[in-house]
């Protein structure tokens, strides 16, 4: 993970001058708009298909080289493409990404585990994260996703994927929930089910957004802050109380910060930290259009028209105009994928996370040693100790925690909608 730090400096410089001095480190590859879900929060399946072939991906990834660290293969439903493992293999051969992230609806329970196993074999030194979508428990999931029997199939897929964990050390199995007006009141149940029953390696939630890519503009699916804040803070409380080690401690600290960013974005309706979409992150649409992000989904150029040369497509005048617009704050959103990259490129956020991780580690070590060796294996909520102490001594509003200060009263007093 540390290998991204020199890239971050280049990307920060790119943002400052408004021109790319390096290629993005976070790439989302939307491999097809085809989807066998009919979610109430998405219309992407209505888009016509003009998908890249594996040969086209191979040429594109060759042009990107080792600059990108984090690849997301999304859709539509990415596992509907039989050649998904070959795509990942091409990305691995040319780009050697540190992280490969694949969301799935889990509907094709007989096919997905096998296809993911081939993905894991194709990228043996990358961390492969597969996130199963879960927007409700039982029939409620089926209703939000528009497919009867989806929950049952998703659970079978989850079992199949979990069986791979013993064989592949590079595999992280996660669960992903989109919080919308259709399920915000159910979120506590979903969280409890995931935490107590599924016990995945990671659980992430994303707020339902209006995006040009998904054709959800004007739909009003985003929950208001008054309904979102209590449920997300319950999740944040869980993160802070849980015990994490090593990289997971860092990941969870960023995740906690991300949820704070979402709350602030809902209330303040602006870029809370600078957005480096178009600099540090990018998306490739199924037909080869290159976007700065999926929220605006505005093409900076098409790879087919630039001989599959990502760098040439990324350096167009249109791309520079979009970078200017984003930097000027002409848009804002809580998009998770871009937000994590933005946080990584935002020095105060990285410093805050570092302080918290060190504090948590020290607190855990002290607590562990005071309990004796036998206590080390116990699952006790020690990560929160330093945080709690900080709150009691009145330092919670200090600079080091500035991103955490979303006052409950302030937020609840405002209408987001």
């Amino acid at each position: 993970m540390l290998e991204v730090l020199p890239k971050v400096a280049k990307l920060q410089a790119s943002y400052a001058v408004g021109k790319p001095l390096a290629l993005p480190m976070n790439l989302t590859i939307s491999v097809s708009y085809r989807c066998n879900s009919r979610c109430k929060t998405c219309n992407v399946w209505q888009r016509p298909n003009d998908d890249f072939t594996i040969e086209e991906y191979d040429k594109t990834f060759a042009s990107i080289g080792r600059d990108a660290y984090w690849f997301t293969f999304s859709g539509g439903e990415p596992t509907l493409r039989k050649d998904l493992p070959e795509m990942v293999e091409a990305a691995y051969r040319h780009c050697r990404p540190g992280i490969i992230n694949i969301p799935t609806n889990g509907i094709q329970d007989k096919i997905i585990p096998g296809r993911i196993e081939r993905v894991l074999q194709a990228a043996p030194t990358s961390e492969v994260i597969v996130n199963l979508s879960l927007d409700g428990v039982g029939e409620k999931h089926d209703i939000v996703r528009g497919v009867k029997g989806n929950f049952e199939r998703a659970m079978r897929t989850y079992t199949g994927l979990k069986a791979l964990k013993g064989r592949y050390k590079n595999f992280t199995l996660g669960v992903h929930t989109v919080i919308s007006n259709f399920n915000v009141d159910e979120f506590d149940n979903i969280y409890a089910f995931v935490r107590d029953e599924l016990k995945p390696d990671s659980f992430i939630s994303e707020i339902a957004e209006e995006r040009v890519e998904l054709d959800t503009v004007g739909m009003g699916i985003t929950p208001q802050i008054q309904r979102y804040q209590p449920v997300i803070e319950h999740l944040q409380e869980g993160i802070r109380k849980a015990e994490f080690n090593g990289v997971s401690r860092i990941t969870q600290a960023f995740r906690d910060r991300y949820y704070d960013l979402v709350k602030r974005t809902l209330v303040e309706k602006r870029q809370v930290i600078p957005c480096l979409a178009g600099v540090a992150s990018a998306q490739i649409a199924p037909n080869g259009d290159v976007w700065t992000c999926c929220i605006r989904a505005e093409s900076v150029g098409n790879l087919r028209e630039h001989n599959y040369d990502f760098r040439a497509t990324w350096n167009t005048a249109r791309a520079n105009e979009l970078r200017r617009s984003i930097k000027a704050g002409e848009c804002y959103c809580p998009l998770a994928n871009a937000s994590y990259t933005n946080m990584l490129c935002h020095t105060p956020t990285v410093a805050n996370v570092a302080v918290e991780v060190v504090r948590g580690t020290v607190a855990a070590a002290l607590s562990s040693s005071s309990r004796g060796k036998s206590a080390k294996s116990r699952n006790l909520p020690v990560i929160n100790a330093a945080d709690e102490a900080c709150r009691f001594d009145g330092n919670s509003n200090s600079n080091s925690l500035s991103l955490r200060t979303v006052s409950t009263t302030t937020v609840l007093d405002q209408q987001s909608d």
Partner: protein
Amino acid sequence: MTECPQCGTMNEDDVKNCRGCRINMYWAFQHYEELAAIRKANRLAPRPKTPPFLVETSKRIDEGPTVGWLRNTIKKFGFKDAGKKVSTMAE
């Protein structure tokens, strides 16, 4: 002409998005009523305040088309009844 369930704008019969509020018309005929009820129960305005940059971007770059089989289904059965023909829910 078809009236948008959300904002009342009159649109061409096979339009993808409402000319007024940009809502996806197929989605609106399937789900708007439910969402409006949720919004009403939460004492929110029936119509969301979508950020202007999104509405403008959507108008500028998202004129369609819709996947052929859905467009044909909508033409044949209309927005409301098309939902029954394309649903992936088992009968």
